[in-house]
């Protein structure tokens, strides 16, 4: 456990020292600033615009960080041969993968927390104070984090079998498909083709289903998110991440570093 923590904190430190992280945070704050501006010119729906844009900014920039740092977590270590130094220590390959994963999730947690604070500051400025109902927006932030944790799992999985660039492409594709997986299954059912139905049905179950994680619109309109969905999403994310990391470890165990 100590070794996993050391690798996780090392990965976190590396992310913190990456300039790309800061530029993304700056961009996120610019987005929030833009949301205040747009909200102020949207008479009557200021809060709705601010919440939609602010949470979307947190999600998009979190996704960029998850993909761009996640894809390099393993493949960059192999390409630069830094993995040799780690694996020559008493570290198993599973500990290496888990440590790297935990490090990036920690980075995203801190990053999302900073952006969420910025978002609430923007909300407080606009509304001249915060109400209790504003904190129900945190459910959407929690779902964004769960979604990002799955994306990091996907990125680390591809990072174990491919180069950084291909991993980025694959992860982004999976993210996009995952957001439309229900639509893809619907398309298959309406097509009338049995083969297509089977293919889209299989894709629906195999690929991550992100559609239930996007509740930005609901929380912006003040709709309460049922606790069953929170539990279901949490269990789904944990299960999916466990499967992804297990697959990543199995592949990484067989990997040779020529």
């Amino acid at each position, binding site marked *: 456990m100590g070794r996993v923590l050391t690798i996780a904190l090392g990965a976190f430190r590396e992310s913190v020292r990456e300039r790309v992280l800061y530029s993304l945070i700056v961009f996120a704050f610019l987005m929030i600033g833009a949301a205040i501006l747009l909200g102020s010119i949207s008479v009557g729906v200021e809060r709705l615009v601010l919440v939609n844009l602010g949470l979307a900014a947190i999600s998009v920039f979190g996704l960029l960080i998850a993909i761009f740092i996640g894809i390099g977590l393993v493949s960059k270590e192999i390409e630069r*041969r830094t993995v*040799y130094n780690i694996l020559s220590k008493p570290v198993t390959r599973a500990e290496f993968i888990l440590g790297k994963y935990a490090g990036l999730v920690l980075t995203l947690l801190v990053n999302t927390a900073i952006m969420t604070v910025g978002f609430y500051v923007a909300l407080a400025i606009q509304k001249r104070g915060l109400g209790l109902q504003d904190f129900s927006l945190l459910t959407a932030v929690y779902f964004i984090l769960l979604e990002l944790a799955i994306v990091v799992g996907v990125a680390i999985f591809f990072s174990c079998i491919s180069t950084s660039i291909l991993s980025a492409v694959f992860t982004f594709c999976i993210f996009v498909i995952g957001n439309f997986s229900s639509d893809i299954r619907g398309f298959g059912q309406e097509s009338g083709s049995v083969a297509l139905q089977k293919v889209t049905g299989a894709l629906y179950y195999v690929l991550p289903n992100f559609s239930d994680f996007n509740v930005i619109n609901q929380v912006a309109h003040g709709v309460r998110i049922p606790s069953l969905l929170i539990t279901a999403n949490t269990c789904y994310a944990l299960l999916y991440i466990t499967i992804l990391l297990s697959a990543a470890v199995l592949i990484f165990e067989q990997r040779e570093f020529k």
Partner: protein
Amino acid sequence: MPAVEIDGLTKDYRVGFWKTRTKRALNSLQLQVEPGEVFGLLGPNGAGKTTTLKILFRLVFPTSGTARILGRRLDDVAVHYSVGYLPEHPYFYDHLTMEELLHYAGRLFGLGKDDLRRRVGRILEQVGLAEFRDLPLRRASKGMVQRAGIAQALINDPAVVFLDEPMTGLDPIGRREVRDLILQLREEKKTVFFSTHILSDAETLCDRVAILNRGHLQGCGELREILSLGVSTTEVILENPGDGVLEDLRPLVVSLIRTGDRVRLEIADEENIEKTLAIALRARVKVAALNPVKVSLEDYFLAKISETEPETAAPAEVHPK
């Protein structure tokens, strides 16, 4: 118990676009390294030295054969508590400083804070990086990175240290420092297993060497035995010998090379040396030098390699040492 036991290690890499062909990088390697010795694995590029070390650290897996370090199987990750490893062309997290790198490495061994602080300070001194402890690795020179690599390999006070081409890319001062460091490790009774293609380093440092070429073990033994094997010729240098004298000497010598006024003769046995000297004295030719010719490790190395590679055969002439 041997420090390192290698028993029939073979490694085939799949090559080509479809990975259908195989290339043998290592062929039934058989080696044993005893505790406390400095062992050199020698060979030209592509000989299989790095593959051997990578197999020992399970960075690649053998096609067949087994190996043990300190009596433990390679898949027992706990053996890494007792070993240190410097990879070839090491690259470390360059956002870390020298000191942070060593702390990171030490924490992977589960070392406590106080112990780690003491060790880091001592090792930075040992490798000559104490004044650069706060220097980020991305701003360090190649020699400094190499020394940082050796430092991280020593952080756990290992019993066996594996160094893959530790002198590569170093300037003469850097090479001297690394040599001194290896000698210091020998004095501390540590086993050092290092690969190199720089023969003078092996000559200076190794108790025993193994020579690899194209994955085949060409020879293995104590360095002094290898180096004393070839004291079989003698060099005689004559000044201004006449053509008639040279004609008389030609049947007695292995080689005869004229350079300006001097002629260098290489003679294989004692009887011919006596005859050569008698002819020279009789003709009043001055004998400028008379030296036994020792086989250098380089000669041994080239001769061994030529056994598997006739096209790169060792030169006919044996160089004086």
